[in-house]
């Protein structure tokens, strides 16, 4: 997922994305999603370009980006593993699962493994409470986690 790009390029590619989505009603969130999809995160350099093109202030764009946890301001590992930390999952052994995953990966939440393979993030409710505890790997949901399936999940992520 993570692709490193030269700075000057970010501006141009942001401009292209904004140009494509600008005509939507309420284009800011779709643009930010597209940028995150493109770069793996929302580069700071993109924000001024978005502000200029949408005729918003830099402050406004900054306010929106920082409001949503999902928009990252730095690159992630190749894979992103999101572990649900909401009430239902916690009550179904989520804490234990979390500790297990941290140990397997050797990192804490919000960190990326040294080999750049996996970033671990907490998330508050995947809406999969019926299958708690739940996680999401690169956008794909995994439910009813246990020690064994967690190991499998981590192994898949580390690839």
């Amino acid at each position, binding site marked *: 997922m993570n692709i490193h790009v030269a700075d000057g390029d970010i501006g141009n590619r942001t401009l292209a994305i904004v140009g494509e989505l600008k005509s939507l009603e309420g284009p800011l969130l779709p643009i930010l999603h597209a940028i995150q999809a493109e770069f793996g995160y929302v580069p*700071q350099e993109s*924000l*001024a370009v978005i*502000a200029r093109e949408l*005729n*918003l*202030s*830099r*402050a*406004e*764009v*900054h*306010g929106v980006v*920082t*409001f949503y*946890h999902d928009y990252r301001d730095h690159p992630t590992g190749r894979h992103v593993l999101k572990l649900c930390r909401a009430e239902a999952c916690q009550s179904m052994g989520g804490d234990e699962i979390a500790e297990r995953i941290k140990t397997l990966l050797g990192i804490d939440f919000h960190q990326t493994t040294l080999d750049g393979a996996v970033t671990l993030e907490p998330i508050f409710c995947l809406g999969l409470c019926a299958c708690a505890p739940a996680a999401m790997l690169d956008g794909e949901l995994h439910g009813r986690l246990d020690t064994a399936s967690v190991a499998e999940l981590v192994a898949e992520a580390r690839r």
Partner: protein
Amino acid sequence: MSLIHEIDYGTPASTAETMVTLTIDGRDISVPSGTSIMRASMEAGIQVPKLCATDMVDAFGSCRLCLVEIEGRNGTPASCTTPVAPGMVVHTQTGRLKDIRRGVMELYISDHPLDCLTCAANGDCELQDMAGAVGLRDVRYGYEGDNHVRARNNGDINAKWMPKDESNPYFTYDPAKCIVCSRCVRACEEVQGTFALTIEGRGFGSRVSPGMHEHFIESECVSCGACVQACPTATLTEKSVIEIGQPEHSLVTTCAYCGVGCSFKAEMRGEELVRMVPWKDGKANRGHSCVKGRFAYGYSMHKDRILNPMIREKISDPWREVTWEEAYAHVASEFRRLQYQYGRDAVGGITSSRCTNEETYLVQKLVRAGFGNNNVDTCARVCHSPTGYGLGQAFGTSAGTQDFDSVEHSDVVVVIGANPTDGHPVFGSRLKKRLRQGAKLIVIDPRRTDLVKSPHVEAAYHLALKPGTNVAMMTALAHVIVTEGLADEQFIRERCDWSEFEDWAGFVAEERHSPEAVETLTGVPAHLVRGAARLFATGGNGAIYYGLGVTEHSQGSTTVMAIANLAMVTGNIGRPGVGVNPLRGQNNVQGSCDMGSFPHELPGYRHVADDATREIFEKMWGVTLSSEPGLRINNMLDAAVDGTFKGLYIQGEDILQSDPDTRHVAAGLAAMECVVVQDLFLNETANYAHVFLPGSTFLEKDGTFTNAERRINRVRKVMTPKNGYADWEVTQNLAQAMGLAWNYAHPSEIMDEIAATTPSFALVSYDYLDRMGSVQWPCNEKTPQGSPIMHIDGFVRGKGKFIRTEYVATDERTGARFPLLLTTGRILSQYNVGAQTRRTDNVVWHEEDRLEVHPHDAELRGIRDGDWVRLASRSGDTTLRALITDRVAPGVVYTTFHHPTTQANVITTDFSDWATNCPEYKVTAVQISPSNGPSEWQVEYDEQARRSRRIAGKLEAAE
């Protein structure tokens, strides 16, 4: 005297006309529908606790303190976001509400420093007030938890804590004290329209962020002060309050910067000015301000101020400090000698648009009654004299037709040759507010100003014409309206002279005035001109605002007439939301013109040749007045060079820096035998003066200023003049020394004389102004309340006059030697020649004038951003540093003129408006080339200025 307390109603007033009656805490209250319960309560004197609401911005409903109970409704709705309804029964204080409020306050205070005693807001803190109002006694949650208050929690670094931002020179931002009510964010958006602030993050992590988590100074912030005013705590605080403490009394006065004429409360501690806070009842600014009026008053206490009168025999001598009596006696005897030796017309005076109406009136009275000639002129000569002439011809009055509130009713706004967000920022904000509500904007300007495109504002049309082609453009717009049948025939038949209209319509309809034909002159694509004309003619209420980009041209007066034509042909005169609105440059340009500062006009724009008018003044003043118009500034200078004009009394104007063709001005001044300068500082003109009379600031005198909407605002004395005398007293003393029996004890007596002699001011008096707040002239028997909008039922002159506007290209043309066109303008933080703003911290934003050059022109000449460039015209040359930007079109360069070393007027030529001699500042053919540093003239000039500022017995200030 005490602090003027302004009631905060919590939410803006409703403009609805239907009234709604409800009961609040047992009291029946009637308010316009759409009013919030909070506002209705406050109008009845019931204060509902609140933190996030203030009446400058819309309700937000975030603080949860203003909750009320409404009979028959569930829950506890917020009173700020809940509108009143007929028959509603509201309770603002119940046991349940008290518990909720106290609980909310506990949460706020659990994350707030408890340093009230040493806090700058102590005595002016709404959080403190509310803690008292809800009866907060203890905080169950303690203070040890997660917080934004302390840099370290038990030794560990607190990531949530942010240090104080002191980057702005005038206020500080202390995030530790922030309660995230977002009043500042909303004030920046709704009132100022800059959108420089936001709330970053979410939940407990929410913080106010300038720009993208930047320092204030690096963000988009324009330092208008709206956020500081809105802040209920010490989070955003004026540095002056931190330094001095809370003020103890205040007076309402009027800002002395631009022609918007904002009302401010000067908040004082003794004779020390603590801060200037915009007054909500000020009808020009409605509680808003800009960086200049709000913060840039430090010049009044600056060490450069000259406080003692000075004399010298020759301008090469050092100054010698003398007593006031000696100075007056010297001026009186010199002026008498010059008149005896060279004739009565050898002396004259210049009034100031920076001084009060009363002071201006006295200077012209001194010239007419004391000198016995009409050699009086004013700096309006170099800015809005074409407005006076053009609008006088078309409508019959030399002034704008609307009040500033009118913009709230406009649907299409045309801005020509003006840059309100920099030059008239408070009006700029009011305009932007209307644009955000959906009004359309047409900008006619060679440069891409902020109004053309800035957050949430975008002009429907930007006609980026070549400097000097205004008339061609305006006539082309009229051509489209007339030939496409968009004229408002009914209005024209009723209000205007039909045969003159037919003549004019025939003229503009000629093919040579079509947008296609003038495209070669203006450089603006014809379809844009057609689009803009159609929009203006059919888009609803159309208002035209213009500035010096219209007047300071060889065809300035013609353009003003063309603007008047455009307003009349579309029927846009005589009601709210329309009209012709000159944006006046200086605080009292309107007033100085009204007061008879022109050589051919007595107060009230009455010609000196008019016997009846002269008789009024002759009777009042007990002298015989000359019926011959006197000399204009440029004529005085010409006559001086010719040796027939020898003495000049200049009050508060720096003609050497502000008038065109600096070398000619210098030669004229140098040829005079007695130049008297009355000013705060040794300005550039004083380098050529023989007598210097120290001036006083607007804080040091009583008087009135008349702003661009003809509004007469009171200026109130808040401190003793540092130089000992207000300017009107100095003029009076000088007059007395010349043998005139003047005896005004107070400026109010001068105003009474103005009212007695000038019909448009007939009812104006200080008592009346105190009662009304302010009033827009004409204010007489017919319109005792003043006249916010003029020409309502018909034009002052009778029938509106359409005048042919033939485009004549200026003689100032580009050619092989001078291929570029230079135009000039202002920047937000600086003001005109900068005598004041350069002596404040505003220099942080603009420490030097830069020459804006299009990248294409720069590349051709090998000029990079920041390089020194030589700027040369037929008149002279100067150097300044380049700023490469595409705001200017290729072929056009632009600079500001706030710094004397720039010497922009060495470049400008002596071409001027055909009718009024207003100089053609806005077009000069120039060439630019890379340079190593200051030009020879700049070096010579600096040396001359340094030498002429020496004061005997005082060490030269080390620089």
